[in-house]
């Protein structure tokens, strides 16, 4: 079955430290991949997306993600986090119709806390 797994429910990092949030997908073909962020009492906002091509994609607010076909992963990274990055981060995947699925599937989310 198609699935997106975010193995870390909570991550705490110090301000200024680097960050990696993990995401693994299970699909029969390479899906489209997304990272969204949700700040308190708000909807989700797109950080970045991967459709094809360069496996390293740049997003908003200095976030980037690296797609790995061999590892079925799409990890989110940031070189230096700020306290305002504290939020919940969701990884998501979708497939073109006719390739085994159409539905967007969201991971369960990782809550990031940036400590001063």
């Amino acid at each position, binding site marked *: 079955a198609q699935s997106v797994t975010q193995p870390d429910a909570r991550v705490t990092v110090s301000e200024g430290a680097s960050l990696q949030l993990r995401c693994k997908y299970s699909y029969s073909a390479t899906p489209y991949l*997304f990272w969204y962020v949700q700040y308190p009492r*708000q*909807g*989700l*906002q797109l950080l970045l997306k991967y459709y094809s091509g360069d496996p390293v994609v740049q997003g908003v607010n200095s976030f980037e993600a690296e797609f790995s076909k061999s590892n079925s992963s799409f990890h989110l990274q940031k070189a230096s986090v700020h306290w305002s990055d504290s939020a919940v981060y969701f990884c998501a995947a979708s497939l*073109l119709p006719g390739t085994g699925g159409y539905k967007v599937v969201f*991971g369960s*989310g990782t809550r990031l806390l940036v400590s001063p």
Partner: protein
Amino acid sequence: GGIITQTPKFLIGQEGQKLTLKCQQNFNHDTMYWYRQDSGKGLRLIYYSITENDLQKGDLSEGYDASREKKSSFSLTVTSAQKNEMAVFLCASSRDRVAEQFFGPGTRLTVL
């Protein structure tokens, strides 16, 4: 750019009551979605619609109805509100079924 508006922001109802949540988008997107987000949890798809008057059930459609009478609007009805479905309901839209989604701020449902 565009925006997704959800009304009301807060909805309080009695157990067993029929309640309606509304969503409007001005992106001119074909596809719209309703998700339920329980406190501290991920998103679960209730309904989606790929065009005007189209409705597709998600994983959590039981107990809900939806309506897409115009391209720009998508309504969700809780047919008989229960205390265990107190949550935030998020509306989203996208160009098509696999493109990135744009989300509204949510409607927080409380059932008394």
